[in-house]
């Protein structure tokens, strides 16, 4: 009788060990699977964010190709935000240095961009050259004629000498954005070249695109309202 009782306990303990091992293996597999899913969620999130940015960048890169822009030019798109700000929401430059966001946030009356926002468009192709450390003439022109602050002009990564900027209106004729073309060269491009590019249909296309992506473009005024 006693050996049978021992055998039963022994068999039961073996069975429990097997069940425990299977359960552990299943759980371990489940954990690995969960971790993989979490890792993939980060990758998927990055991919979605990237595709939204690509729409604007692609649009600007096509314009850059049409204008035959090189490494001394760039195109940026600013949208109006809040009471008096212009926020950079898209930029394309072959030169990565010029593709950086820079100040990102401008006053709506400041510089060639602000001037275009107020008066439909602005163009300049002869801002003074900077000779070594001598930026006096360049500073003077930017500050006096284009209402920029000295500190901000000095901090500019791209010291453009040719700039053309055009205001964009929405379907209700409300001014919503400005597109800006820049070159570090004197007479880097002509006003005529920009006018040929920015036809009425092209401006409508840009306006519709901006309206379409309005809900997904950054809005610092919204961030401020929500406590950020």
């Amino acid at each position, binding site marked *: 009788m006693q050996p049978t009782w021992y055998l039963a306990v022994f068999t039961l303990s073996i069975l429990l060990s097997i069940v425990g091992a299977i359960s552990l293996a299943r759980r371990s597999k489940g954990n690995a699977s969960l971790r993989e899913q979490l890792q993939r969620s980060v990758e998927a999130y990055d991919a979605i964010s990237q595709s939204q940015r690509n729409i604007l960048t692609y649009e600007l890169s096509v314009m850059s190709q049409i204008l035959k822009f090189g490494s001394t030019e760039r195109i940026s798109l600013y949208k109006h935000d809040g009471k008096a700000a212009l926020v950079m929401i898209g930029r394309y430059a072959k030169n990565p240095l010029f593709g950086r*966001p820079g100040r990102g946030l401008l006053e709506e009356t400041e510089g060639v961009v602000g001037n275009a926002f107020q008066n439909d468009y602005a163009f300049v192709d002869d801002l003074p050259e900077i000779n070594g450390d001598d930026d006096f003439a360049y500073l003077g022109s930017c500050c006096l004629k284009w209402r920029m602050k000295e500190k901000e002009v000095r901090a500019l990564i791209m010291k453009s000498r040719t700039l053309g900027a055009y205001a964009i209106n929405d379907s209700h004729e409300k001014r919503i954005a400005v597109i800006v073309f820049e070159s570090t060269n004197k007479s880097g491009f002509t006003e005529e070249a920009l006018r040929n590019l920015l036809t009425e249909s092209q401006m409508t296309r840009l306006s519709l695109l901006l309206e379409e992506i309005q809900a997904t473009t*950054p809005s610092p005024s919204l961030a401020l309202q929500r*406590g950020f």
Partner: protein
Amino acid sequence: MCTLTHLLTYIIDTYSSEKYPVSPPRLINILYLTDWKAAISMHKTISGIQWKIIDSEPKVDDSTLKEIIDSVDRKGRKLGFGLIGKLQRLSTYAPSKIERTSIDFVTDFAKNQSDEALSLMVKSTYPTITQDESDIVNLADLAEKYGRVKSLLT
């Protein structure tokens, strides 16, 4: 000073949203907004993360990302939270009362936001709009600069 581990435990323990459950990307956005909120209100950050802005989004290094994934993983398996979270709050490394003000503000905000809305809020903050891609951002310094341009936005 609060450690990242204690901060993650606190956030995961206090964040509850059936509609928008916690995930690694959501947690990264919550951590970033918490640091930005703290930089605005306290002139310092809480997490100790060295944030980089890449493609207009805050990014963390690989070891921080692993810690974030681990914490969500533990939450998914219901391990290490609840009692441990409560015990950790007694630690000197737990978020202080003033730090909890920023953290709670952000978790309360985040739990009602879809992934897209939360991401847009992150992309709308001053640092993500103004920072160069390869730089480690100093949120406290940027909060000071932000204070000077805020008037354009109101």
